[in-house]
């Protein structure tokens, strides 16, 4: 039986209050959202917080709403299951449903939140690549006010973000997807259909203009210290016609620019192979969806 060590526990009713407790107690206080990662690391003894600040009593942080003509605002405390099953998300940004649907098991997805998944800054995040190709903006609120930052600028290293002490993510804004845009998130784990940690995760987004790629974004997880954009692969896609050969070249480029490690799950060289395979498949899927005329 694994037991949690004692800690002080707070249920603030506002972000300001939560932010104050988190700032006062400094690095010994952790915000609690879904808890599916935090409590596991506490039980394993990886971290030992003196204080937990449960954010879930703060109202208004879990909604999913349309905003600005096709854009979407997702509360940081929306659960992964909320996102996976949301008709709104499925309609406007279906790639996020695809990513949510392969994160952990259903009971975990009922607890885990999108804010927790991003705030944890795990290199193996399933939500990060999809949010990155969608160019999500993260709204954060701290004692000195609120700000919005690009998702690409949130990750500082494995397990660390660029958020200041006491700064709390409140929502994610996804700009509307352009017409003739398709996106896909593909993940390789040990089990098919998700359920476990990604060995490699790849999101790709393509916007076609007169059948040629006008926008290309590729984001990878589990292949470096943080989720990352494969910029050279993106540039290759935009350098000419969207042929099979070019997609294969881009996939090779993505594998080359990633910096995976060997760990207990698999070797770096295996990860490189899988990055290439999944990037190619994700590009193909994104292209098909883009050609379908809508982001289906």
């Amino acid at each position: 039986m694994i037991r949690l060590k004692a800690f002080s526990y707070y249920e603030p009713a506002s972000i300001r209050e939560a932010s104050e407790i988190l700032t006062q107690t400094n690095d010994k206080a952790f915000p609690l959202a879904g808890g599916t990662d935090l409590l596991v690391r506490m039980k394993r003894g990886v971290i030992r917080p003196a204080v937990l600040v449960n954010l879930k009593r703060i109202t208004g942080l879990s909604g999913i709403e349309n905003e600005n003509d096709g854009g979407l605002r997702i509360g940081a405390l929306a659960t992964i299951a909320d996102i996976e099953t949301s008709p709104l998300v499925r309609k406007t940004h279906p790639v996020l449903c695809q990513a949510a649907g392969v994160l952990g098991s259903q009971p975990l997805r009922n607890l885990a939140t999108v804010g927790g998944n991003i705030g944890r800054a795990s290199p193996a995040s399933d939500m990060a690549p999809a949010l990155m190709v969608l160019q999500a903006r993260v709204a954060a609120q701290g004692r000195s006010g609120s700000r919005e930052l690009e998702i690409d600028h949130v990750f500082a290293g494995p397990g660390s973000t660029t958020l200041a002490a006491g700064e709390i993510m409140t929502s994610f804004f996804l700009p509307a997807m352009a017409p003739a845009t398709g996106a896909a998130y593909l993940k390789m784990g040990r089990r098919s259909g998700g359920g476990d940690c990604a060995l490699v995760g790849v999101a790709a987004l393509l916007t076609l203009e007169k059948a040629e790629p006008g926008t290309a974004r590729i984001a990878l997880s589990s292949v470096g210290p943080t989720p990352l954009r494969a910029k050279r692969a993106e540039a290759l896609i935009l350098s000419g016609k969207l042929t099979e050969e070019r997609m294969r070249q881009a996939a090779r480029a993505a594998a080359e620019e990633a910096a995976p490690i060997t760990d207990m799950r698999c070797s770096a060289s295996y990860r490189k192979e899988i990055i290439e395979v999944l990037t190619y498949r994700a590009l193909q899927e994104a292209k098909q969806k883009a050609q379908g005329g809508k982001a289906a």
Partner: protein
Amino acid sequence: MKVSIDIHVNGERYQKEVEAQTTLLEFLRGTLHLTGTKEGCGLGDCGTCIVLLDGKPVNSCLVLAADAGGRKVTTIEGLAVDGKLHPVQQSFIDNSAFQCGFCTPAMILSAKALLDKRPEPTEQEIKQALGGVLCRCGSHQKILAAVQAAGKGEK
């Protein structure tokens, strides 16, 4: 640090004081003596501790009891009504859908949550819904048959 909670479990209201670090699983087993909910890995991997929180399956080893305050919990003990088993429970018996039984409460609760939402699920939907629970005996085929039968209202 003690925290006061007000929680509904299987239709009964409980007002209790718990240590902040008490998980919902420990509260159910240790305080309420509802030992039908099992602890396996304690880390959210095996799923044997699944209960329904406001009708949705969750790993109770990863929920603080304090965090479950104000919410409705259903455990395996809460499924039978007036001594009559829930159709999914009866179907597990009729289909011999277990060997050691350790994962059974979590399997049944996961199946119940699915059938409440989708009375006639596809095989793929059942597999997805039960994917959070590991059965080490390898009873999966019979479990699948039991849930399919319960979904069709078969005896």
